[in-house]
Every structure is written in structure tokens, then in C-alpha cells.
């Protein structure tokens, strides 16, 4: 097994008495493309910031490339690309000035890639010389992505990278991920609520809930194995599963169980009477898991 590129151990963080992260442990191997999922306010941004060492945790540690995230060396720093959810920095510079500024900070800078992306992503004309503060939300986000990709990072962390992009912008971004990032075996961690995009590129998903990573699995396996079993309370009371995610009763007395089953278990349940056994889409899964 490859040594992990990100290792988080028992991370805690609270804001004004509110516990946001309550013991997150997360290990990420190189080359993974992971989608981080969770409800609004679950602490995804906080987790990504602590992961990168941009925010100090109350307890626990994040290690990147084997180094403490809060004391990264210059080399390790240059291996990281980060797209924050909202960037209000450098508003007085133009895109070209801002990129020149960053270029000077990195030992490696892919000028061809930057030129190509500026050209294709709407900065061919006057936008490249406009003050960043006067760009639209979508333009700012595209620029932030260009900046994060410019030095060919080994670890790319994206916090809601496509929230303000239109469908064409999102597709352009996916193409760049497929062609320029995943092809280079870059480790990618991204949070998003746009599940259709996540499905296309993430091979693994992790759910942040109640301040912890409650579920992490390869997406294909999760879609294939997770079943919702519904039926009468009496019928379900007898069922026990190795990997039960949740069991709940609705107001009318019906019970549903969310469990991960192998093919044989699912087939056996389907053959039985009085039960409904169904697989779920990622969206249904999100709703069920984060209830």
C-alpha cells in the first residue's frame, strides 16, 4: 500500500462553543479522487482548511506528504493547489498581474497551461486586464481554479469549485480535471453539492456528518451495495445485517433499514415476501445517509 498523502488524526475544532469537527480521522492515498459530502454547515470547509493547515485545530493533527500541515516546507507547499469556496483576495489586481505574482512564488509554473486556460475560460479578451474585484462570481471562480492548477500540484483541494459556474463552465472544469489533472495521478479532494459532477469524476466519496467522517467508500461499491429495505416493523425486526447504516421508523409505523449488502444477500431478501428492497441513486443516498 502506498503511504498516505493526507493523514488526519482525531481532529477537533469548535467555534464559539459549537463543536464543528469532533474527532475526524481521514487517510487519503496518493492518486485518489475523493468527493467530500455533507449537509450545509457540516464543517466541510473547516475540515479542508484544517487539513491544509490554514486553520489551527483545537486538537488532533493533519499531516501532508509526511509533514505537519501547520509547518510545511517550501517544497511540500508548492505541491498543493487550493481553490477556496470564496476568494476575496487580490481584488485590486488584474488576472494577469495576480498570476504573475503567484508565478514568482512557485519553483514550477506551467505557463503553457495557464495561457491555454485563460484563452479557453473567457480571459482571452478584456477580462484579463480588468480588476479582479470587478469580475463576475463565475469569472473569479474560474480564475481561482486556473491559479490552483498553474503549478501542476500533486494535491488539489477544491472547496465547492463549481458553485458559481454555469453548466458550460462546469463541463469545462470537468474536462480539465479529466485531461490535465487525473491523468497526472494528482490526488484530488473536493467538496460539492453538485452530485452529478461528483459522480462523473470521484472514485471515492466521504460523508462528513456530526463532526466525523461517518462513511467512506468507493462510489461504485457504495451504489451497488447500499440498499433500502422497507416493510412492516415486525418483518424488519427480525433482520440483522453485518453492515447496517441506519434503521428508522416513520410516523405510520413503517420501518426502513439502510444497509450495505452483497449480491447474494440482496437477492435472498428480494426473494422473500413482504419486503421492498431497492438500490439508491447518489442523491437518495446523500439524503438517507445524512438524515
Amino acid at each position, binding site marked *: 500500500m502506498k503511504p498516505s498523502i493526507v493523514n488526519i488524526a482525531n481532529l477537533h475544532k469548535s467555534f464559539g462553543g459549537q463543536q464543528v469537527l469532533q474527532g475526524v480521522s481521514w487517510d487519503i492515498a496518493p492518486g485518489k*479522487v475523493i468527493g467530500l459530502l455533507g449537509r450545509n454547515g457540516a464543517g466541510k470547509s473547516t475540515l479542508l482548511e484544517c487539513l491544509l493547515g490554514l486553520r489551527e485545530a483545537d486538537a488532533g493533527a493533519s499531516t501532508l506528504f509526511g509533514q505537519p500541515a501547520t509547518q510545511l516546507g517550501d517544497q511540500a507547499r508548492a505541491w498543493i493547489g487550493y481553490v477556496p469556496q470564496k476568494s476575496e483576495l487580490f481584488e485590486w489586481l488584474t488576472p494577469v498581474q495576480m498570476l504573475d505574482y503567484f508565478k514568482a512564488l512557485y519553483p514550477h509554473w506551467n505557463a503553457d497551461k495557464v495561457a491555454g486556460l485563460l484563452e479557453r475560460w473567457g480571459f482571452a479578451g478584456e477580462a484579463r486586464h480588468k480588476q479582479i474585484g470587478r469580475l463576475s462570481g463565475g469569472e473569479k471562480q474560474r480564475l481561482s481554479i486556473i491559479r490552483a492548477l498553474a503549478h501542476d500540484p500533486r494535491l488539489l483541494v477544491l472547496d465547492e469549485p463549481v458553485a458559481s459556474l454555469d453548466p458550460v463552465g462546469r*463541463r469545462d472544469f*470537468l*474536462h480539465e480535471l*479529466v*485531461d490535465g489533472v*487525473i*491523468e497526472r495521478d494528482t490526488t484530488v479532494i473536493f467538496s460539492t453539492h453538485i*452530485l*452529478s459532477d461528483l*459522480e*462523473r*469524476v*470521484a*472514485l471515492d466519496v466521504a460523508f462528513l456528518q456530526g463532526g466525523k467522517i461517518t462513511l467512506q467508500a468507493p*462510489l*461504485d461499491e457504495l*451504489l*451497488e451495495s447500499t440498499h433500502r429495505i422497507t416493510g412492516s416493523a415486525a418483518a424488519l425486526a427480525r433482520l440483522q445485517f453485518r453492515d447496517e447504516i441506519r434503521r428508522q421508523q416513520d410516523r405510520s409505523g413503517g420501518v426502513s433499514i439502510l444497509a450495505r449488502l452483497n449480491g*447474494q444477500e440482496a*437477492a*435472498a431478501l428480494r*426473494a*422473500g*415476501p413482504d419486503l421492498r428492497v*431497492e*438500490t*439508491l*441513486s*447518489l*442523491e*437518495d443516498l446523500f439524503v438517507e445517509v445524512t438524515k
Partner: protein
Amino acid sequence: MMTSHAATLYSIATGSSEPIYRQLIEQTRRLLAARVLAPGDVLPSVRELALALAVNPMTVSKAYNMMETEGLLSRSRGIGMLVAERRAHSASEREALLRPTLERAAEEARQLELDPDAVLALFNKILKEEP
């Protein structure tokens, strides 16, 4: 005559409970059944298909690898993935394909508390029926 297929051959649906790699496998089966794909045809490269569908190339690789293992596709150096020539499967391979279906039937038969001899007699009768 060797046909090379464009990536537009395939489409995927997000928001499905069926993983994308499975959608690709199912579509290939349907295209084979409909004879859109014929033995010897060249499929789009992993990269080409991944870009056209905007999906992770690993997902396309996974689908291609599974279809190669299954014998639906074959890999040819310098050309890429080809639709496999239809070869005669050995009897034991064909039996292995049938086994999951029979296992499910057996499970149901036990749950219905049917007599094994009666079940075998029924299966014999079904085998002799014209499709």
C-alpha cells in the same frame, strides 16, 4: 472491413443507482445485440471516451477491463480495444454464466418450500418448451 467507433456511441446518465462503469457495460451489450458493434470493431480509446463523457478515465478502464475479462472485448496492441470475435465458450464457462440465475431460483424454491424433485421436473418441462 474494420469499423472504428466514435465516443458518441456511448452516453451515460448521472443520478442513476447504476454505477457509470456498469452503464457502459450494459450499453456495450445492447450495441452488440443490436449489431451496431460487430466483431473486430475498434472502440474509442479510454481517454477519448472519458473526455467525451466527462468521466474519470479509471471508470472507463474499469468497464473495458471487465468486458475484456468477460470475453466481450479484446485488447490489441497499437490499436486498442476491439469487439471480440465470437468464440465458442466451453460448456463449463456457459454453465458458470447460468449458475447465478439458478442459485436465485433455488433460493426461491426453498423459500416456497417446494419439493426438490418437483422443482427439477418443472425445470425439465420448461427446458423442453419452445421459446
